[in-house]
């Protein structure tokens, strides 16, 4: 038996085409290997934001997790964080609940009991349900209405349906809709914009704030910067939404349908020239011109400075970081570095980067963290001396690693600058 981790070079992938991706790189065709490099896939809440944490993005909200005990087990990691203390409650299901559905009748009383025990009435009680209720076909909207009438507080559903993670509306898409569903229509203000997509703010020094201010925007809302429920409600005054993460698309469409707020989508990129052209297109849509020379230059200088320190950097790029590993790998190769390995999940959307990589770095190997043979991953022949991403760091423990999974979101030129500053420091 060959004890070797499966991989494909980007050249091979390009030749196969996006309709013939090897099944070893398609997660639903094989068992999912579980290693510390895949923890964020199996349990998004274990690192960063999963459904439970994201569901509490509404200020002053609490969450009731209605599920078998196993689904709420790791929540104690979150509960130990100051921001989430006394915000998670559990209604544990047993076999009889599954057979009779009696747990649904308990929810209104449980919500009322939780609210009675709190010093301050919560702004909303999020009811988090899991795969079990997905299979039972529970109408959680109806249950939430009942609970809302009984307890006298807004109650909203939050679907942690891992079974649907590769479907049309995965849990992290759904939860983005849920957290904005409490907004009520308000009179629009021409100088207010919402940034949608992340559950934590962009880094304070991101040029996007200045560019928007320069275009006449006075107030930029992000849900994570809302201090209280009243401020959260002012998000419905926005003139338009900027969608910075594709998983917020459905939420943006909801905004459009319900609150008549249109949206523009921007991507997070690490190729400086592509960032510039994206900003140009965005400015043209707004009918303005952006002055982005200074942040652009700062990003270019950071790349240059890193190149001076580490001219021979050979990267492994993982997927558990703030970026698309294929796009970031392409950016690194464009900047003149070698990318030996990528650990990522291929999709139609990022195959475009594979095509470009195939031309300039055909031997770059693509692995799937989730493939069973990753148990035998051997780093010895990789030549890697620097890694980006928690998973890449796991495979190459002896190499310099930048986790690049901080909660403050890197974006635009500032993201590139910060990444290369971080790489220069390790």
């Amino acid at each position, binding site marked *: 038996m060959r004890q070797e981790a499966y991989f494909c070079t980007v050249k091979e992938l390009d030749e196969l085409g996006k309709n013939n991706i090897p099944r070893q790189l398609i997660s639903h065709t094989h068992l*999912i290997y579980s290693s510390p490099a895949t923890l964020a896939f*199996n349990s998004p809440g274990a690192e960063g934001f999963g459904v439970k944490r994201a569901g509490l993005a509404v200020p002053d909200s609490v969450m009731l997790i209605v599920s078998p*005990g*196993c689904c709420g087990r790791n929540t104690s990691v979150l509960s130990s964080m100051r921001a989430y203390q006394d915000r998670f409650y559990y209604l*544990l299901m047993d076999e009889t609940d599954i057979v009779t559905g009696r747990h649904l009748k308990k929810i209104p009383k449980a919500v009322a009991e939780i609210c009675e025990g709190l010093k301050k009435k919560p702004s909303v009680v999020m009811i988090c349900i899991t*795969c*079990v209720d997905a299979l039972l076909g529970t109408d959680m909207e109806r249950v939430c209405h009942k609970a809302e009438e009984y307890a006298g507080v807004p109650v909203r559903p939050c679907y942690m349906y891992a*079974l649907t993670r590769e479907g049309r509306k995965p849990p992290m898409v759904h939860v983005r809709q849920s957290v904005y569903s409490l907004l009520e229509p308000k009179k629009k203000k021409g100088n207010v914009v919402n940034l949608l997509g992340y559950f934590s703010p962009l880094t304070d020094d991101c040029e996007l704030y200045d560019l928007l201010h320069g275009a006449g925007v006075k107030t930029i809302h992000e849900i994570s910067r809302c201090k209280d429920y009243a401020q959260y409600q002012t998000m419905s005054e926005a003139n338009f939404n900027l969608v910075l993460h594709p998983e917020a698309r459905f939420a943006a469409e909801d905004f459009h349908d319900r609150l008549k707020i249109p949206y523009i989508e921007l991507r997070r990129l690490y190729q400086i020239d592509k960032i510039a052209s994206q900003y140009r297109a965005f400015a043209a849509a707004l009918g303005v011109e952006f002055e982005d020379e200074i942040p652009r230059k700062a990003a270019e200088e950071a790349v240059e400075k890193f190149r001076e320190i580490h001219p021979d950097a050979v990267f492994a790029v993982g997927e558990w970081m703030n970026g698309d590993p294929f796009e970031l790998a392409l950016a690194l190769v464009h900047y003149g570095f070698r990318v030996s390995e990528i650990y990522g999940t291929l999709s139609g959307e990022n195959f475009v980067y594979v095509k470009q990589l195939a031309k300039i770095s055909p031997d770059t190997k693509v692995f799937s963290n989730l493939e*069973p043979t990753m*148990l035998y991953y051997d780093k010895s022949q990789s030549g890697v001396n620097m890694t980006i991403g928690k998973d890449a760091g796991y495979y190459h423990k002896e190499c310099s690693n930048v986790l690049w999974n901080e909660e403050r979101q890197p974006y635009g030129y500032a993201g590139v600058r910060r990444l290369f500053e971080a790489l220069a420091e390790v």
Partner: protein
Amino acid sequence: MRGLRKYLTPFAPDQSGAVSVLYEFGGIIVICDAGGCTGNICGFDEPRWFESKSALFSAGLRDMDAILGRDDRLVAKLADAVTKLDAKFAAIIGTPVPAVIGTDYHALKRMTEKKVDLPILTVDTDGMELYDKGEEKAWKELFLVFAGEKEDVILGRIGILGMTPQDISDLRAADRIREHFAAEGKTAVCFGMGNGLDDVKSVSNVEKNIVVSPAALEAAKYLERTYGTPYETGYPLVDELVYDMDYHGKKVLIVQQQVIGSAIREEIQKKAKDAKVTVASWFMIKPELCSDTDLHLRDEEDYIRLVENMEYDVIYADPCMKRMTPEFDGIFVDTIHFAVSGHLAEMR
């Protein structure tokens, strides 16, 4: 309200217990889930997962797999993995999804055996029971499948049954138990923590078994029936857990798994016969290990009322339970139970 938790996060579920038992035996372990249960087990309930590589997998079930009951896909995925990995057996561990769709584990086992040339274990856990239930099933299945022919007993060879991080809350405890017995010229075989599948196969050669967790009691009885191996219950390292104080006339509450709780009680009563000691547990209470005052706790309210009404002087319990009874003004002895808090004793 029954089932409502305001202070404590849910305890380790049965599927985590089953994995905890089988983790070190060199098999492919497949959690029959969509991914979240595997994340919970690996990222939280299995502290050894961070220390070394293991062949642990999620079945990666999707909605249509569950709706259409596509067990054949799981079998095909497992058969494919077996061709690529070195493994001594394959174990399929249940979760709420197969429980809801009524997966027939016997049929699944037979289907898999036809496609895979390895011993197959299935554990019908459902994520709604507690870890000890899953452990109990896994211990029984393990010995049922792997325990070999009767061998001659080796004097001084002691089997330790029930050792898992969930029960013992200390990853180094097995080493210390081996040292403890080595000092007496004996050999301790800690099944599941340091001793592998070969020792399971030759389980009949131990002089006796010591059961350190109620979850392993049924397995001990099975081994007694099958090989005549006697067993006793107790925890060889109990002296590490007993707080040094004057217990005379004191009312003591111990909240732990039943074997460790009873072992602590025994030690306390050796120091002070007049101490009134109650053992309570969130987990299984075996009648044969039970004293009249022992209690089973189900909901948070059970514990809160017990402490409020019984005026204990000393409480042995996991520190995460302190906040449930802020008025308690006696001595609280931190007795970490991994299955309760997810913390290991050495992390204190």
